[in-house]
């Protein structure tokens, strides 16, 4: 019984962490039409920037996490303008290959400055709280709550703001959006910033939950894309739901199969559900 309850907690926790970068990837794909691998590495960058800011500033950790996330947003915008804007009209393949290159470069920047070793934030270890019979540490609870709040804010942003309408319009039909007065470059700029912030924040959360290694992003790459696909590309709610489904499935799978097959579970779920619902979990 204990493990059934605990897997619920750890499944939601890992899902809450994955959903942020996965939503970023999903939105980028919906609008820019590229599978943007580099955003997995913005997780790594965010995690390590937080480590650097913590050492340099001594601010409280939430402020440091915010600072790291915003820096990642900025970095994503700069990268988009410098690297991806020139190939905007050249189709999917050049941009996709560039994103692979950017991924490797980001990962190796981290390796260059912080080395290959395993690091930890200087956060004290915590004993779990008992929340309605579920064991969870205060930090892990904070991760779930923050992630939920961010997803809700994002939902509001996309649904009820002008920027959100422009993003959705561009995603649906870029030509039509342009005709109706939407400036696509402005949408791309904002969206890269948002996706960068989401990935950076997700990276910090992942490092709080586990530890810092230059592989934080790389190890998340496959689940992130599985979640983005399963959620239906461009759908915030869908990606959030898909993240929980994949998180819970991979944790509960341990009751039946060895942990070393855990990574494959995301794909079994993806394949299975796409057969049943080809357009994603929440397609209209």
């Amino acid at each position, binding site marked *: 019984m*204990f*493990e059934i309850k*605990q*897997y619920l907690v*750890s*499944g939601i*926790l*890992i899902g809450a962490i994955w959903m942020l970068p996965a939503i970023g990837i999903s939105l980028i794909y919906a609008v820019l039409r590229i599978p943007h691998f580099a955003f997995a590495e913005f997780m790594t960058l965010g995690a390590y920037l937080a480590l650097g800011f913590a050492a340099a500033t001594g601010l409280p950790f939430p402020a440091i996490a915010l600072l790291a996330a915003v820096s990642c947003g900025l970095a994503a915008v700069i990268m988009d303008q410098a690297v991806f804007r020139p190939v905007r009209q050249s189709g999917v393949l050049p941009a996709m290959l560039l994103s692979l290159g950017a991924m490797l470069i980001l990962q190796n920047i981290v390796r260059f400055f912080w080395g290959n070793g*395993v690091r*930890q934030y200087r956060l*004290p*270890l*915590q*004993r*779990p709280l008992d929340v309605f019979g579920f*064991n969870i*540490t205060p930090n*892990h609870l904070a991760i779930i709550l923050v992630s939920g709040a961010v997803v809700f804010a994002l939902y509001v942003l996309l649904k009820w703001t002008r920027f959100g309408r422009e993003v959705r319009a561009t995603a649906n039909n870029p030509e039509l959006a342009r005709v109706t007065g939407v400036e696509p470059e402005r949408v791309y700029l904002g969206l890269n910033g948002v996706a960068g912030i989401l990935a950076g924040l997700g990276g910090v959360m*992942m490092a709080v*939950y*586990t*530890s810092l*290694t230059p*592989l*934080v992003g*790389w*190890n998340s790459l496959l689940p992130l894309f599985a979640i983005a696909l399963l959620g239906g590309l461009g759908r915030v709610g869908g990606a959030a739901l898909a993240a929980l489904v994949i998180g819970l499935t991979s*944790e509960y799978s*341990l*009751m039946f199969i*060895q*942990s*070393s097959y*855990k*990574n494959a579970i995301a794909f079994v779920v993806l394949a299975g559900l796409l057969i049943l619902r080809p357009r994603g979990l929440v397609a209209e």
Partner: protein
Amino acid sequence: MTTRKSAYALTSRRTILWGMGLTVMVGPMARNMAWAADDIPIGILMPLTGAGGIAGPHMLKAAQAAAEEVNAAGGPLGRQLRLIVEDDQTDPEAAVKAARKLVDVDKVSAVLGTWASGVTIAVAPVTQAAKVVEMSTSGASRITEVQKKGYVYRTEPDDLLFGKAYAELALKRGWKTAAVLGLNVPFTASTVEAFRQRFEQGGGKVINYITYNPDQTAFKAETIQAFQNDPEFIHISGYEPDVTGILRAAYESNLKKPFVVPAFAMSSDTIANLGPAAEGVILVAEGVDEKAPAFAAIKKLFPGDSYQPHPAMAYDMVNLVALAIEAAKDSSGEAINSKLKSVSGPPGTEVSSFAEGAKVLREGGEVDYRGASGPIDFDENGNIVKSNFRIAEVKDGKIVPVGMLEDVVF
């Protein structure tokens, strides 16, 4: 292209004849010169830099101390050992280059001190082809296959022996049920199998065996699973990053059991990082023989922390090679290889230094060397047949020795 052509042209029949003639004349001269030189070149190939940089410099210090003692006692066959030191950089490629230099240029008859398993495996073909003895402190089980081809020995317990040690520790403490969390790589598979075998022979049972992938970072679910059905202790067979993750997950889930982990998977940095989550963890380290007379030398070299398995092994390697030369009355690699097993193990008078051993050998006796790192008796494959292990516990953030496992055998 022209240079290449002229190079071929040089290899005319006449040149070959000249060359053969020269070889016939110079060959014996060179050999005579080698005989005449009164020192014996011994190659030292240690990880002075790279990942093994934590071990190499200390090992070198111990090997040099041993050579000084041997030489002070007159040296094998009345000749002096001359150590030629190369850095293997903990890198197989660099190690092979350095080994080639030792074998081809310095004409050493033994190469001592490779540390990383990958390095030992890479260097073995070079030394085997040249009939030069190679001795390592590498643990990987697959090295046994390499050693079966001859000339390669190790003073480090095989990983399998580590597995047996975990089991004996558990049985000694009266534990009957175990959970194992194992990194999904070949080294753990064989160690865990060895553990299971000995543990079950002693009446124990492995009730949970959970494997996880090398790139995994979150261990909460795996840790919870390991605690199912209330095992009496949990053995983690892995490396530093995953051991850290598991201990943390257990602490954060309020799960408490004794953890038994390899000492090499927990540095003092990790212990500091983990803080309360590392308290009470039981560490198993390959042994030294603190009661052996030979250990006095290691104590003298490292007065602060004298628990230094690899330097103790390096010290023993030099003594063993010197004794083998004395026993064979010849300093070639073939001669050393033919005598290493007999001077390392029974039968014979137990000796703990070259000086003692040489005296016995010169009187026509046999010796059994007891080293600073343990009894060191090589079996037919060049593995040590038994080994000591040290048990320590983390108390108040410090590694505190709490006992020894002596003479753990296969």
